[in-house]
C-alpha cells in the first residue's frame, strides 16, 4: 500500500526534503506502542544518590523494564554486559557493531536479571569520552547535552538467537574545553542528572490514575472502545539560582523533571544554561494510541504531555506503561492497570 499523503511523522519526510521531490511513501506498520511480544521497553541507571550519570569507578544499579508477551514483567533473565569496544568513526549507529555480538573479550559481564549492579569502567572516559588515551587521538564527540555514554548490552533469550537491547549509561568525564577556567567552573556548577519521574498520570478532566504499585488505590476504569485523552505530568524544576551577588557559582537544583543543566557550548566556547526536553513513550497491552511518542522540548515550559488512547473493544484488563526519558539519558516509568469494561 502506497500513499501520496504525508506521513504522520518520522524522519523519512525530512529525508525527502533533502531529496526535494514529491513522492509517495508506503504505509508500513510503524506503531510499537502495543506490546504483543516480549520486549525491553526502557532501562534506568541510578546510584544511591539518585543520580543518573556516573564517574569512572562509581557503582550504580541498572534496571530494565522487561515485559513479556502478556504484559507482565518478564521472568526471562536478561544478561547484562558493558561493551568496551569503541565505535569506528565511520559507524553511524550509536555503538560499535561489535556490541551486537553475543560474546567477545570486549564485553564486561555484569550479571543476569532485570536489575544488576555495575561499576562504571575506569576506561569509560577514554574509550567513549573526551579523555583520549593519547593526546594525538581524536576525542569522542559529546552528544548535544555534552554527554558521553558507556554502551551496555542486554541479551534476552529469544526463540532463536538472543534478542539484543543496547543501553548507554551516561559517564561523568572531564569537560572537553581548552580553558582551565571553564573546566573549573563547570566542575563546580554542574549538577548530575536525575532520572525523570512521573508526578501524575490520568485522563484529562477525569482524575488521575493510580499506578500499579499502589495496591490500595481504586481501579482505573475505561469503557470498552472509549477514547480518552491521557495526560502525564512530571515535576516542575526551578532554573538555577543566580550567583550570590553575581560572584558565586550558579546553583543548579537536582530535580525529577525537566532539569536545567550547564552545557559547554562548543561554538561559543562558553558555559550556557539549558533545560532538558522530556520524551514520553506510551505502551499498553491493548487499545490504540494516537501516537507512540510525545513530549516537550526544552524551551517548552509546560510540564505535561498528552496522548489519545482508544480502549480495546473487548472488555478485560489492560496494562499500560508510561516511560519518561530526559535528554541526558535519564529514564523513569510507571505501570498502570486499567480495567476496560
Amino acid at each position, binding site marked *: 500500500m*502506497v500513499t*501520496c499523503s*504525508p506521513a504522520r*511523522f518520522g*524522519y523519512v*519526510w*525530512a*529525508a*525527502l*526534503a533533502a*531529496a*526535494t*521531490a514529491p*513522492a509517495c511513501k*508506503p504505509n*508500513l*506498520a510503524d*506503531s510499537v506502542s502495543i506490546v504483543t511480544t516480549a520486549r*525491553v*521497553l*526502557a532501562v534506568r541507571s541510578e546510584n544511591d544518590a539518585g543520580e543518573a550519570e556516573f564517574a569512572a569507578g562509581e557503582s550504580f544499579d541498572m534496571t530494565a523494564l522487561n515485559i513479556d508477551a502478556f504484559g507482565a514483567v518478564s521472568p526471562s533473565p536478561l544478561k547484562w554486559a558493558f561493551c568496551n569496544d*569503541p*565505535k569506528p*568513526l*565511520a559507524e*553511524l*549507529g*550509536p555503538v560499535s*557493531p561489535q556490541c*551486537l555480538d553475543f560474546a567477545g573479550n570486549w564485553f564486561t559481564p555484569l550479571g543476569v536479571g532485570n536489575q544488576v549492579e555495575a561499576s562504571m569502567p575506569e576506561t569509560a572516559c577514554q574509550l567513549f569520552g*573526551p*579523555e*583520549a588515551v593519547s*593526546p*594525538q*587521538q*581524536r576525542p569522542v*564527540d*559529546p*552528544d*548535544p*547535552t555534552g554527554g558521553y555514554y558507556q554502551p551496555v548490552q542486554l541479551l534476552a533469550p529469544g526463540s532463536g538467537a538472543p534478542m539484543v*537491547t*543496547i*543501553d548507554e549509561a551516561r559517564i561523568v568525564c572531564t569537560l*572537553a574545553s*581548552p580553558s582551565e577556567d571553564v573546566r573549573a567552573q563547570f566542575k563546580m556548577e554542574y549538577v548530575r542528572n536525575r532520572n525523570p519521574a512521573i508526578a501524575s498520570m490520568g485522563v484529562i478532566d477525569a482524575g488521575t490514575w493510580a499506578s500499579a504499585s499502589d495496591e490500595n488505590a481504586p481501579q482505573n476504569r475505561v469503557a470498552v472502545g472509549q477514547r480518552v485523552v491521557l495526560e502525564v505530568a512530571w515535576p516542575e524544576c526551578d532554573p538555577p539560582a543566580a550567583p550570590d551577588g553575581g560572584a558565586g557559582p550558579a546553583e543548579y537544583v537536582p530535580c525529577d523533571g525537566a532539569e536545567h543543566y550547564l552545557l559547554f557550548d562548543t*561554538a561559543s*566556547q562558553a558555559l550556557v544554561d539549558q533545560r532538558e*526536553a522530556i*520524551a514520553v513513550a506510551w505502551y499498553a497491552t491493548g487499545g490504540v494510541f494516537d501516537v507512540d*511518542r510525545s*513530549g*516537550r*522540548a526544552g524551551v517548552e515550559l509546560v510540564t505535561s504531555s498528552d*496522548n489519545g488512547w482508544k480502549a480495546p473493544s473487548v472488555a478485560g484488563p489492560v496494562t499500560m506503561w508510561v*516511560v519518561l*526519558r530526559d*535528554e541526558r539519558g535519564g*529514564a523513569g516509568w510507571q505501570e498502570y492497570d486499567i480495567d476496560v469494561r
Partner: protein
Amino acid sequence: MRVIGALIVLLATSPALAQQAASAPLSAVGTNASPTRAIAPPRLVTFVRAEFPPSEIASGQGAKVVLQIAIDASGQVVDVTVIGSATRAFDAAAVAAAKKFVFEPATIDGKSIPVKITYRYQFTVTETLVKKQTADFVGAIRNRSSREPIANVRVALDTGQETVTDANGRFAIVDVQPGEQGVTLSGESVATVGTTETFESGKRLDVTYDVVRKKEGSGDEEEDEILVYAMRLKKQVVSTEVQAAQAQKVPGTQGDVLKVVENLPGVARAAVGSGALVVWGAAPQDTRVYIDGIHVPRLYHDGGYRSILPSAFVKSVELIPGGYGPGYGRGLGGIVTISMRPLDDEGFHGSVGADLIDASTDVRVNVSPGVHVAVGARKSYLDTVLSAVTSADVGNYVPIPRYWDLQARLVFDLAPHETVEIGALASSDRIAHTLTNPDPSLTTRQTTATDFQRFYARYEKHTVNGSVVAVVPWFGFDSTSLVNVFGTTPTDVTDDATAIGLRADWHGPLVGAIRGNVGLDAEAVLSQLHRAGSIGAPPREGDEFTFGEPPPSQVDTDDWKTTIVTLGAFAEADIPLIDDRLHFVPGVRFEPFLVDTNKTRPDTAQTGITTAIGHARHDDALEPRISLRFEVTPKIAVKAAFGEYHQAPQPEELSAAFGTPVLARSTAQHYLVGSAFQLTDSLAVETTAFLSTSQQLVVRSESPSPYIAQALDQTGIGRSYGTQFLLRQQPVGRFFGWVSYTIMRSERKDSPGQDWRLFDYDQTHVFTALGSYDLGSGFEVGLRFRYATGYPRTPVSGSYFDARTNSYEPVFGVHNGARIPPFAALDIRGSKRFRWGRVQGECYLDLQNVTSNQNPEEIVYNTTYTQRGYITGMPILPVLGMRLTW
C-alpha cells in the same frame, strides 16, 4: 571529409595575361585621332583577380573571355561588355573582376580621354605538386524536409569569402584559410543560420547542409537551425553535443535545453529529485560544468526541475563523460560544456515563458551597431501553485524548491571577428521545511540555501588563418547553507566561497596541417566554512544508513577557511597522419595544486590548542592526455584515448574537526576505445568502452580512535568500467531521436585490504530512447522511454532496540548488497507552434510517467526494521507551459 592528398589542382586566373591584354592595341573612341598627336594608352594600376567559378571547378577546364572595357577620363571602368564568351559563369566572373579595375587614363597630348579597350581574361587550370596551404570548401544545401537542393543560397565564411549555390544546390569556395571558420547561410528562401567548420590546409571539406525553407505566410515556423552531415573532426574522442533547438523538443525536459543531458549516454538516472549529475560512475562533485569556459557549481536547480541557465541563452550543450583533452581538468569525472547563444545582429528579440513550475523572460537588443545586450530572468512559483491547489501548509509536508536565476550579457563587436563580452550569471535556491511531531525529538526542520554568482569578461578573436583566441577572466561567489535539525541533533553546514578564474585559450594551425591548442586555466577558491553537528550528517558516499535515519547524536563544531589554487597550463597538438585518416592528438596539462587551510587542529576538543595553525600543501600534477582517431573508411572510424586527471579535496573535507586538513589531491585515469559508424548521412551509431580507475579517494577513517584532525583518510580506490552506445538520428524530414544505452559497473574500496563494493551511484543499465516528430501545421509530438537499474543500497538484516533513545537501530547486511528496483517510465510531449505577426508561440504539455508506473525511488523501513517498502515517484507529472518569442 574527403582526402585530397598532396596533388592539388590550382585554379587561377593569370595576371600576366591581363597585363598583356592591358597593353593590347587600343582603338580610340569618340575622337578623330591625329597622327601627330601624342597618344598614351590607359595603364592598369589596380588589377582584381577574377574568382574561378565554383561551378566550373569540377570540369577541370580553363576558359578565355574577351571583354571590351570602357574607361572614362578619370580611369574608372564605366562599362564591360563580353565580346568573346566562354560560359556564363566564366563571363560573369571576368566581368565582375574587370569592373573593379582602375586605370591610369589614356591621354592625347597629355589630356585624359575616355577610351574602350579589348581585354582578354584567361582562366587557367594548373596542376602543381606543391602542397596547398589552404583548404577548399564544397558542399550542397538541401531542403530539410524534401531533401531537394536549394539554389541561390548565399554561403559566407568569416574570412569574407562567399558564394551562392547553383541550381543543384552545390557550392564551392576555394583557398579557405585553415582553422575554425564561421559559416553563414542566408537567402530569400532560407532563414539565416550559422555553424562552424574546421578547415585543414590542403584538405577539402565536403558537407551537406539541410536547412529549413521559409514558408511565406505559414504558421508552421521552425526554430532556426542547421543540420550538417559530414564526418566531422571531433574535438573529443567521446562526446555528445545537442543543439538547443533540438534539445528543447525532448520529452521530459519541459523545454529546458540543459535537461537533455540526463538523456545522454554515460549519464546515470539521478535519484529522485536530486538533479545530481552522475557520469560514468563518478560522484556528482567529480563532474564539472562550464558555461563558455566559466566554471559554475551546478547544472540544475534544487529538485532537478530546471537547469540554472534558461534555454534562450543556450546554443548547445556537450557532455564529455571522460577521456577529454588537456583543456579541462580538476575533476575525476566528466565535464559538461555549455555554449551560449550568439546574440542577434540586429533588432529587438526576446521571449516570455511560463508553466506550472516557473516563469522566465529574456530580452536581446542590438542597441547600436556592434553593441548587443541580453538580459534574462526566471523565478519559480511551484510553492505558490501547490499551496493554492492543495493546502497552504503543503510546504511543511512536501519539500518544494524555490529558485530564481538571472543572466546579463553585453557584447561589443570590436571587429568582424573580434568581440568582447561582459556578463553576469546568478542563481539562487531555497528550501524550507518543518515537520513537527508530538515528540520533540522527532521534530525535523530543514533549511537549505544555495546561491552562486558569476561575473565575467570574454575576449574572442577569430583570425583569417583559422586561429581562435579566447580569454575569459571571471570571478564569483558561491554560498551554500544546510541547516537540519533532527530532534535535538543539529546539522549546520555553511560554505561561503569566492571563486576567481582565468581561462586563456588559443587554438589554430601550428605547422603545416598540425593544429594546436595551448592555454592557461587558473582557478582559485577561497572558502570560509562553518559546521556544527554530527560527523555523520550529511552522510558521505559509502556510509551505511537507511533513508531517513536520524544522524548520530555526537556533535562537534568547527569554523575554518581554505584556499585552493590550481593553475593549469595545457598544450595539445592534432597531428593528421596517413592522408588525414589518422589523427594523433597528444596533449599534456601541468597543474600545480595549492591547498591551504587555516587550521590543522580543532580548537574545541581537549587539545589545548587555542591558536589556529594553518597548513599549506603543494602538489604538482602532470597529466598526459592522448587520443587517437582513425578513419577506417569515410563512414567508419575507430578511436581511443587515455588521460590522467586530478581533483583537489573539497573545502568541507578540510575541517580539523570533521575532516582532515592535510588531504592531498585525488587521481583518476580514463581509458577508452570506441568506434563510430555513419550508417546514413543522418544516422550514426557510436560505441565506447571505458575504464576509469581512481586512487587517493577521500573516505571516512575506519579507526575507532583516529588521530586528531584525521577523521578522513585518503585510502579509497575506485574503478568504473562499461560500454555506452548511441544510435542517433539527426533530424531527417520531420523526425529526430536517439537511443542510448550504457552498461557499466562502478566499484570502490575504502581501504586496500577490503573487497570491492558497489559504488553508491552505480547503475548497471541505463537506457533511453526518445524521438520527436513534426506532425505539420505547428504540431509536434515526442516520446521518451527510460529504463535504469536502481542504485545500490545496503540491506537491513535485523535491528536492535536502543533503550536510551527509544529507537530501533538497523543491523546492516552486505555493504550495498541490494538495489532499489529498476526505474521505467514513458514520457510524452505534445506541442503546438503558432505565429502572431513577429511573435512565435509554443504551447506544450509534458507528461512524465504517463503509464503511472510506481517507480521505487528509495527503500524505507518501519520503525522496528521488520517491514520494508519503497518510496515511489509521482504517478504522473503533467507540466503545461507556453512560450512566446519574437
